[in-house]
């Protein structure tokens, strides 16, 4: 099963290398890893997806990450209320004969066509990895010529805020 870890690290040179090197050395498998800046200067957020069924392995991963001097916080957010998003660019075979079909197909995914050629279109999709998977599966019969996925980046939900927003929506609905 995939676990999603968010790791806050010092934004120093070589930190990504420390983290990936650690996974390599300890024999942990990375499914995806994303890195980017955060609201705090000098800190980066990594979102690491690992494939681990054994809770002891996940625990060991977290402890080993914590041993890194440049790691400030590690959270396994898999079982927390969270938002997880991924971006995919998909170049799909689409001669003019199937183009409107493809356009209709991607519409419920709120994906958009960002580049158009004679024989293909490039689709941009964002969303939960499951949604991306579903879209890719639907597009596969047309022939996927190129695919790029960013990997997951994720956040825990601010549950108080979530409650507030739903209350607000409820009030509005009334």
């Amino acid at each position, binding site marked *: 099963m995939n676990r999603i870890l968010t790791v806050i690290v010092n934004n120093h*040179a070589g930190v990504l290398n420390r983290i990936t090197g650690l996974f390599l*050395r300890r024999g942990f498998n990375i499914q995806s890893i994303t890195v980017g800046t955060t609201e705090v200067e000098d800190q980066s957020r990594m979102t690491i997806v690992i494939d681990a069924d054994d809770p002891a392995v996940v625990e060991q991963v977290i402890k080993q990450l914590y*041993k890194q*001097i440049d*790691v400030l916080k590690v959270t396994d957010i898999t079982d927390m209320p969270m938002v997880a998003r991924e971006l995919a660019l998909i170049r799909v075979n689409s001669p003019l004969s199937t183009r409107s079909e493809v356009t209709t197909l991607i519409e419920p995914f709120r994906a958009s066509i960002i580049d158009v050629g004679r024989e293909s279109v490039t689709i941009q999709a964002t969303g939960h990895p499951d949604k991306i998977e579903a879209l890719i599966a639907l597009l596969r019969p047309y022939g996927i010529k190129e695919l790029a996925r960013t990997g997951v980046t994720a956040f825990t939900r601010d549950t108080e805020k979530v409650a507030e927003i739903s209350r607000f929506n409820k009030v509005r609905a009334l």
Partner: protein
Amino acid sequence: MGLGLQKPEEVSAPQPQPQKISGSQMLIEALRQERVEVIFGYPGGAVLPEYDALYGAGIPHILTRHEQGAIHAAEGYARVTGKPGVVIATSGPGATNLVTGLADAMMDSLPLVVFTGQVGSNVIGSDAFQEAPVLGITMPITKHNYQVRDVDSLPRIIKEAFHIAATGRPGPVLIDIPKDIATTLGVFDYSEPVHLPGYQPTVVPNRLQIRKVAAAIAQAKKPVVLAGAGVVFAGAAKELLEFVERVQIPVVNTLLGLGGFPASHPLFLGMGGMHGSYAANMAMYECDLLINIGARFDDRLTGNLKHFARFAKVVHIDIDPAEIGKNVPTDIPVVGDAREALRALLEEPLERGDTAEWLAHVKRMKQEYPFWYQADGQGLKPQRLVELIYQFTGGDAIITTDVGQHQMWAAQYYRFDKPNRWVTSGGLGTMGFGLPAAIGAQIGARDKTVVAIVGDGGFQMTLQELAVLTDYKLPVKVVIVNNSALGMVRQWQQLFYEERYSESLLPGQPDFVKLAEAYHMKGYRVHTEAEAQAVLREALALPEPVLIDCRVPAEENVYPMVAPGKGIHEMVGIRP
């Protein structure tokens, strides 16, 4: 100079700016602030500025004959003194020669602060002369490492390095200094406190966990304490003794934990593990409560994990939370320093369970199954050799070793009663460790007898360091347990590879006595027990370095033994 030719305004000018010094001078100044007593190193192109700053700076420097010698010496120093060992080496090959020592120190949690030179910042990455990507190479084998990019950050980095190396679970920290940084001027400010939000080791254990341990002790009928190197690092030998005597729980030591509990104590069961004592291993197998204090459940200790402590509730006290639950599922984890944890335990109203039968049982095992070897009245048995060294040094020498058979015999027969006297390469199992480690140990403890018990194979990996013994008049006694073989490899080939001695025999040995003489040292050769007695008595009394080539039979094996893949209760060779 001194002719009064300065312009008056220059003399009277105020000095608002703090004086700037070069990176290499900062390094020396920082080492002074850290009260570094000695540096182990080897110069080269990229550290010429550092060595220039060192010239006449008053900090003693030990020039080894190879960078590996320098770092093992620093490890020996750290093991004996508990203080960080300091190493300087040049870029490229100088730095890569440190790799074995860094990995060794990382495995055995030894505090080191290692400085490597690097090519100039402007040519890093261009495959410049003597360039090696030291940061990347050493990242997985250091506790932390740095490459200095700005001279003003150097004091902060050095301060952090000493802090990281010596606190929490100790380990090696490396600082890579590009040559231009060493010559650039900057402001030296060492007053800022260390600020590392990502590094906050838990020293004081959780009181609730400590109470759970106390409750488990009260219920246990078959408790055993496993004491590792964490006890020695924490300086907790006294507390451990007090705790053990209070609760009357028998004690097993790991290889690196030897000396953390007195070997002569009636509750001591010996070393556990592959070549540990039968009583120690059976106690860990049969116990219903295993209290691990500062050991990391290494595979050489546990044997097949399926059988290890299978009936026991497991308590694991460790300063490194990542060690808890890594190899052995733990019932009561306690994160903290060994001494703090033992002190906290001693503050509890400790009650003992009904352990009388268990104590009688383990003592019986200890009596019935001691370490054994067959004395044949001729020649010199390696086990007897270690017994003689023990006897003639009053059991209070510092012993360093390489890895292999002689190491196991030293661990079995030199019965350490005090900590910080046992200097061996445990986790990494580094051949060639013993001689350079003895150099560092002797420098760390000038008034102590230091005996390097080394194998003929391992000795030949770092024997060039003999020169250091004469250079610095270090009265180390080098005892070569010479069986003209890579003994442990030979033993495994005998036992598990149908006596096919593939490349494990060393018939073409040099004349070690002449070698000693070539290094201006006294050399002896002994073949029999009687000769060994006479020579050891004489050599140990000499205030100078000595080499003794001890010829022992090649067919001698280390017993008892847990064969690979077996449980610790399945020892072979437990009796003659």
